[in-house]
């Protein structure tokens, strides 16, 4: 583990107070000095340059910004970065190791579960949260678990197949 310090660009001339946060992101400890109002999605994207987390709607509906906070899926556009202080965050960049894709990533490619790719990171993280709890879900369980994530391209059918594919892989059946 390395300890990194990165500064988030904020205007230092104003009188808005800042605070230090430390977050473990994809297994690395990272810290930043931030305005308390900074959203987690923006800390990840602009501060830590992890642009795989997308922001689509600003109202916690589309789920493109979904990340795992201590293993639980959250919509990072509606979480203050300070709320993640001292916690662990997993983003799409943390799913694969350098050599090996996560089964959900393989499943999305194999079953054509993405088109434009914008919803995909959030969709995959919601699916990972489900599969970590239950690696043999029914189609209905998959659909319910993904119902906080919107996709405009695929019609979901192949996304559901991708998640079932990943479940089978995690069970050693793929």
């Amino acid at each position, binding site marked *: 583990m390395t300890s990194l310090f990165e500064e988030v*660009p*904020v*205007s230092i*001339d*104003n009188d808005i107070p800042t605070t230090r946060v430390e977050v473990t992101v994809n297994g690395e400890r990272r810290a930043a000095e931030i305005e308390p*109002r*900074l959203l987690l999605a*923006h800390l990840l*994207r602009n501060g830590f*340059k992890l*642009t*795989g*987390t*997308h*922001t*689509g*709607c*600003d*109202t916690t*509906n*589309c789920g*493109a910004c979904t990340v795992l906070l201590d293993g639980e899926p959250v919509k990072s556009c509606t979480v203050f970065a300070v709320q993640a202080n001292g916690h662990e965050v997993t*983003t*799409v*960049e943390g*799913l*694969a190791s350098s050599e090996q*894709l996560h089964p959900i*990533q393989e499943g*999305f*490619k*194999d079953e*054509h579960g*993405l*088109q*434009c*790719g*914008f*919803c*995909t*990171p959030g969709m*995959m993280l919601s699916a990972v949260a489900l599969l970590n709890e239950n690696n043999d879900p029914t189609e209905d369980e*998959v*659909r*319910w678990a*993904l*119902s*906080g*994530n*919107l*996709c*405009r*391209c*695929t*019609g*979901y*059918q*192949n*996304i*559901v197949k991708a998640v079932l594919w990943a479940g089978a892989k995690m069970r050693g059946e793929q």
Partner: protein
Amino acid sequence: MALDEVKIGGLGSSRKRVEDNRFIRGRGNYVDDVVLPGMLYMEILRSPLAHAKIKSIDTSAAYAIPGMRMVMTGEMMAARNLAWMPTLSYDTQAVLATDKVRFQGQEVCAVIADDPYIARDGVEAIVVDYEPLPPIVNPEQAKAPDAPLIRDDKVGQNDNVVFDWEVGDREGTDRAFAEADKISTISMHYPRSHPSPIEPCGSIADYDRSTSKLTVYMTTQAPHIIRAAVSLVAEIPEHMIRIISPDLGGGFGNKVPVYPGYVMSILASILLEKPVKWIEDKTGNLISTGFGRDVYLKGEMALRNDGKILGVRMHTDSDHGAFFSDAQPSKFKIGLMHSAFACYDVPTAHLTAQGVYTNKAPGGVAYRCSFRVTEAMYFQERMVQAAADDLGMDQAEFRRINLVKDDDFPKRTPFGFLTDSGQYEKCLQIGLDAIGYDDFKQQQEEARKRGRLLGIGISTMTEPLGAGNSREYDILGIKMFDSAELRVHMTGKAILRTGAKTQGQGHETTWAQIVAHELGIPAEDIIVEEGDTDTAPFGMGTYASRSTPVAGAAVSMVSRKIRAKARKIAAHLLEVSDEDIEWELGRFYVRGAQDRGVTIQECAMAAYSNVPDGMEPGLENNAYYDPPNLTWPFACYIATVEVDPETGVWDVLRLVAVDDCGVRINPMIVEGQIMGGLTEAYAMANMQFITFDEDGNCVGSNYMDYLLPTAWETPGFELHEVVTPCPHHPIGAKGIGECATVGGPAAFVNAVMNAVSHLGVRNIDMPLLPDRVYEAVQTGNDISGMPPVKTDS
């Protein structure tokens, strides 16, 4: 031995997508992911009112915020002659409001700051004093004699009418109606909807004074059109403009027009000499950028008692919002509405269309369709169902009687298009068999006796995809063709660039498949690039399902040019004359001596090392393709539903889709397109619409109010296929991206209407919300979706 085409990823291979490799790792490069050194951030202040005079704008508090760089106002834009810009439909649109605001969400100021949060603070700090004016929210109000004039900025505009337009044979149609046994009528509203890609619009403008070059990263489906438009509006020479459309998070027509935000980021970058990033928020996207539909449809059909259609009259009243900024061919004011009834043998038809201004967001973009084809096919299929019902005839049988027969091609449509291929009855029959039509009708009868409401709805249609040809199709006079450029390197690897721009359709995968088919170079040896106007050949972009019909054809044609040159090189290498050379996939050989041959890769090497005397070295070329006709895919969609009479909720039991899009380049991707389209069709039928209250407030300005289906609501789809190759496309392909969005809505609505028509209900306007369906079931009345009108009480 010729290569196995599927193994090298050629035509018909369900090759996995190459673009997925970056998307699944979070390594896509969308516009908001682009960071330039010293970049500033822009946010837009939008009007809270639909119609109001601007009395004053006070920006002093915004300027007092540390980190603030500039606040742009309409006055500032006007001083530079940039307060107004031309639209893609020969109208003008305000970049920043000067005199008054004309819709809720209109751009009033732009704030540029060191940080997006500071820019947002700046927006909050601006004080605008408005004097409200009466808003107009529908065509009826717009046409009232005492209606306030929305476009008082336009010289000679004395009413709120945008256009009056007609097409077809008025007298012939009158005669057909005079001879009819029966006349069937229908009146509907196709509600306003927003394409709503998950990624909103945005741009990063970077003007470099040292080189005078402007680079703009931008969410655009048509980068070359944007380059031309920016050159004209901002008076920057075209070669000094580079538009880069990076990965797009969906488009669906929303990312075709030029929006004020793009223009303002460009001006801000020029004035501040720094890169300026503007990323729209979701509300900004939903309330100000190109919507789709919003058309009132009135139809009459002249019928013979035996079921034959004799003629059709159509009238449309379309609501274009405050500025006519549709992106569509300039000849056709209401898009391709007159493509209706193309799959039926209808002897004569006449269409009148009127468009009006209202105090609503501008647009009328082709939302996942070819220029109003969605409205046309909905009109057609709802009219057909109503006519069958009026004749007391089975809906499938009525279609069978009137569908164009396989032997009738080429066939003129009632409005003069030329359809060229199809097997319509076969598609219909496959659909009916798959759904078990007769069995379902029996179940429906039995269920009805027990108070359950089942319904089955059919939608059959052919639609014109792939504008141009350039004789008839242009945008602002720019002819609608497309292009491809192929460079084969000496080791036989290649780079392909086209004038199209993928937004999820998978061009990086499928274009390489076309090259593999034409040249035998494995698809994995070809990379595809699009979206950078400095490197890609000129093209009109991706919308209206035109990529495969036009740019895809150009890919074929440029590959054939490369093959023709390689053939000469092969003759040289094999020391025979050109005429003695034969081609099999990936290899030339000597006629009569198949073992004496050279591969395409060997020809590529020779092109750079051993060309015959007098031949230019290299193996590169380009092709501009102007299609002789549109492509005409056919689809049959059949839905079965159950309506709950107690709640008005309806569930899809099954949806069967039979698509004939000609030759399929990548069947996996084609099916993905169909399922995506069916979901948008389901959305429009069920929940997705943008409406306005009587004050012109947009209801549906965020994803809490604008409902899009999730994985939970979306039904499963059963897909079937028929292949009738397009006779004029080089590989026999037709467009497919939009068929299901276009034809799908009528299948769902016809199914619900079929479930409730015995109660006397003839039409419920989309979306078929539970309260609308409930009221129709309880009262037996039609339900209009017309937005509310302000009344004095």
